[in-house]
């Protein structure tokens, strides 16, 4: 029962890592990872010039394969520089990273972003470089969520 409660707390509140027994939960500001919140955090109010500039910088620093992926799906994949795990970075500034398995199935959602209310392209570039260059350090501060949102969890629980 305690384990189930841990899992539910992890799912609802978010935490850096899944509970491995009796976990503690200190994170005060968890990600909102449902679609509505993601759209809200997409910062559509950023100036067009800043947005365009940031997107250009992002695109310049993607591989050809990542650019193609981004054009088709509005996400691109990166490989963690230290663990070799695969991540999918979706367009957005919060709760937009997914850890996926070898088949491309969602394993968990991850949330971290740079300070300073950056525009979308800059956030995505920072996330990409962080996962490629100092993955473990950034995962240590990131919040992680199970691969389902609160609504589906609620439905499942009922």
């Amino acid at each position, binding site marked *: 029962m305690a384990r189930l409660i841990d899992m539910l707390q992890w799912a609802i509140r978010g935490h850096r890592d899944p509970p491995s027994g009796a976990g503690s939960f200190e994170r005060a*500001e968890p990600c909102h990872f449902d679609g509505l919140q993601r759209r809200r955090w997409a910062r559509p109010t950023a100036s067009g010039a800043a947005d365009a500039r940031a997107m250009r910088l992002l695109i310049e*620093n993607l591989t050809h394969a990542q650019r193609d992926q981004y054009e088709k799906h509005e996400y691109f994949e990166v490989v963690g520089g230290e663990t070799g795990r695969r991540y999918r970075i979706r367009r957005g500034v919060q709760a937009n990273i997914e850890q996926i398995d070898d088949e491309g199935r969602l394993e968990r959602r991850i949330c971290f972003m740079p300070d300073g209310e950056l525009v979308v392209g*800059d956030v995505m570039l920072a996330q*990409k*470089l962080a996962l490629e260059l100092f993955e473990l350090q*950034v995962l240590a*501060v990131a919040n992680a969520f199970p691969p389902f949102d609160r609504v589906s969890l609620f439905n499942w629980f009922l």
Partner: protein
Amino acid sequence: MGVQIVLDRRGDSRHEFDVSGLASIALAEERFLELTGKGFRAVALGRNKGGELLDRFDPTVEQTLFIPQLQGG
């Protein structure tokens, strides 16, 4: 010519420096130390396919990107 790119609310701010000028390099190094001192990460863009984390100023890097401190969301 080297360029330091700092991610910020305007997209980014770019600071160019002359790699053959001592004063210009000194200024670029000062900016590097100031930003990394504030928690920014410096990445040499284009190195090793994607980028390379820099732990010290390197005037031979053509493009250095400064990423603000990262936090969990």
